[in-house]
């Protein structure tokens, strides 16, 4: 994306409501279509199958929303950012809405790697008394099990406040820990410990947990270039 004759517009958008359930690919496709509907003078790649020169920020998992997601689009000519935003908003659906845009340096880092620190806010179905983070989390990647150490990814503490928790995860070159995977592991870990410390079960054949700890929603609320910025 370093063609100095082109204008590089970075657009911020929200992925919210039921559209949090869209996959990264679905979001990308929807936004590309919105850019076309907005009739922006987008650049098209050369080669066998020409396509729009658009690049997306770090992917969100299915089910995770975001308030400040980004994509970059290369434009053939200058369009006032306010005009571009208006056109994009007119072409967007409410839950996948462009919220701001600004030109950035052609040499700036790609949208997908510019902000390795993601801050999330998750809401539980009920306020948990406490939340325990397991030291190791087993994930399945390409049919292979892999053990991730949560401390390698978690930046700062997990701040529990009523029925919400706020935390920051760092994406590594070698991979990252998904926020939904982390939270599920936390819920399981907390409940497993809770069950052992709770009063012994009257009925020994059934282990009852009062009400299972479940996540209602996860939203990425900030993407930062540095840990300091993320924790500020």
């Amino acid at each position: 994306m370093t063609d100095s004759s082109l204008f590089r517009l970075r657009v911020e958008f929200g992925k919210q409501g039921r559209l949090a359930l869209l996959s990264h690919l679905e979001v990308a496709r929807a936004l590309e279509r919105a850019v076309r509907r907005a009739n922006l003078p987008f650049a098209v790649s050369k080669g066998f199958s020409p396509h729009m020169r658009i690049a997306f920020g770090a992917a969100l998992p299915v089910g995770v929303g975001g308030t400040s997601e980004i994509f970059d689009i290369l434009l053939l000519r200058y369009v006032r950012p306010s005009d571009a935003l208006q056109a994009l908003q007119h072409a967007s659906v409410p839950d996948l809405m462009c919220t701001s845009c600004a030109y950035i340096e052609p040499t700036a880092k790609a949208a997908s790697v510019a902000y390795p620190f993601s801050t999330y806010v998750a809401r539980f179905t009920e306020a948990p008394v406490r939340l325990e983070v397991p030291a190791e989390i087993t994930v399945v990647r390409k049919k292979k099990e892999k053990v991730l150490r949560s401390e390698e990814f978690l930046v700062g503490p997990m701040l529990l406040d009523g029925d919400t928790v706020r935390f920051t995860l760092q994406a590594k070159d070698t991979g990252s820990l998904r926020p939904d995977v982390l939270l599920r592991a936390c819920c399981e870990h907390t409940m497993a410990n809770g069950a052992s410390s709770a009063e012994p079960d009257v009925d020994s054949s059934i282990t009852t947990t009062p009400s299972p700890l479940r996540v209602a929603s996860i939203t990425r609320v900030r993407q930062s270039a540095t840990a300091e910025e993320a924790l500020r």
Partner: protein
Amino acid sequence: MELTNLWPRLEPLLADAERPARYLNHEFGCVLKSDADFNFCMVYPDTYELGQANQALRILVNCVNAQPGMAAQRAFLPAPHMCDVLRDEGIPLFSIEGCAPLAEFDAVGITLPHELAATNVLEVLDLSGIPLHASERTDTDPFVIAGGPCAYNPEPYAPFFDAFNIGEGERAMPEGLDVMRRMKAQGASRADILLALAQLEGWYVPSLYRWLDEAEAQERGSWIEPVRDGLPTVITKRLFEEFAESPGWEPCIVPFTEVVHDRLNVEVLRGCARGCRFCQAGMMYRPVRERSADNVVDSVLEGLRCTGYDEVSLTSLSSTDHSQIADILMRLNEACDGKGVRISVPSQRLDSFGVDMAELVAGQKKGGLTFAPEAGTQRLRDVINKNVTEDDLFSAIDAAFAAGWRRCKLYFMIGLPTETDDDIKGIASLAQRAYDRAKAAVPPEQRGSVRMSVSCALFVPKAQTPFQWDGQIAPEESLRRVALLRHSVKYRAVDVHWHDPDTSFIEAAMSRAGRDAAAWVEAAWRAGARFDAWSECFSRQAWEEACEQTGFDPAVVAQTTYPTDYVMPWSHISCGVSVRWLAHERKLAGLERTTPDCTFERCSACGACPSLGTDNQLAAPRTNAKSTAIKPDRNDSGATFNAGSASFEESGTVQPDTVPTCGGDMAEKAGSCMRADYGEGERYD
């Protein structure tokens, strides 16, 4: 009545659902009318990604929404696992726009896109909590109506539907719904409303007709008998008479998740008169009506602007037959230059002109090209009236491989009437010679990349075609013929694929059966059959169990060959083409004589124009453009070209036809949105 919103109950289930985007709604372009007193839900009896791009769904939802007081929503069958989850949770099937239970709608329309959707119809009704049989429904249940290709033989579905809309629904559907709405508002009973509906043009209400037995039917010339006076005994399809002048662009929904045919679809023409004798689409969409080049070009550009799609398909049964196709493609190429937009023409003529047209839109990227010679020998191609010669095919191959294509897929049918082992060996021979031609057209250093593949489907006799009287070969025999074909192909670069004969067998039975098949379908569904078009879901065992329970013998229905004076179970449904002409065509097939395309040559007297009170409507005269030079044709006067009419008795000797031909049945297959088509490369990929 305010419809219930099931979203709060559905939402918690979506976190674990596969592809939740199927159930979300909120797509760009979807409409939820709030000021309606009559609610209609249009259902595609398969999943969102197979049904969303369906033309009938888009057109009819728009048509109904355009009516004051009426609102239309879409619904699809959830994926198999999600169907089970909904059942377990006690959540009924819901519409997309309003997430409302189907049972609360005033009318539910289910399109019948292909013969393997029957059990899914029952799955839709059962998940909705709507009684499966029309006879069990009361005034509080919705009217359940059907349409689409399989409505041309409605009988295997008859007990499940209150009414069938035969033919094109643009006008007929809003008219029918209007009858329901007005009479319902006046407090009329369900029976009275259905009686009124049965008297509307293009509507068939099966419960008002007694089903006769075979002997009675053959004696009387019809399988049905009206239960009261004043009902039509033949139901003729409805046409959308303003098709040619109507704009090719109409609002459409842009889905989030990837669906089949995920692109702007602009219908450039309707109908195909090539007259392939096995092809149902070629019979039932007559006459041929073209939208003008101006209409098509404007529609495409407007559609791209409004949807943001980067691909447009010019759809029809034979788009390269459009009299102004070269003009259309050149103007679109010019208008879309530099925007990264792909233009595709899903059904191309099997000749160098077809390749020229393919090249016009392919740009630099040339994947595979598909041609459908359908039969391996000239004799058999004459039998089926596939008016294409070896030279046509070879000139197409020469042009395609010289232009840069490296892969070619050839479609054939196995088990066509009169087929012998020589015809099967002919497929191998044709494919191998096509491979030799392709290699010769390519620079020596690239010859290693040349691929030719052969795809075989089992012939399915379809209602309303000249081959409707011909039986299908048994699945075991088809496997023998496939084995013979595989044995006959000596080249390693030519690979052979074939379609599972078990599903083709069910298709044939469903295509030709009468009302007695409905019990069999229901028993199969009760035994677990659903999503029969998905090879991973098809259960031969369920259908066999259903045979044991009901005594229905699908082999007799699928495999019996009848004389052409035998009255078939759909003889009371007319697509305009006369049965006499179908029988005449069957006779010509036996004589290996071909019939020309009336949009290029003289009228073949099929009967469609006079019985429907119309003519072919061409934007300009069609010519056999065989030259490779493309001349822009700016003659887009939009004048109606009247091919005139004649009767086949007068037509005398039928000359061997030289009209190059398209993948007519190919277009039908792609349009059917079968699971097997999902993800399959576009013809010009």
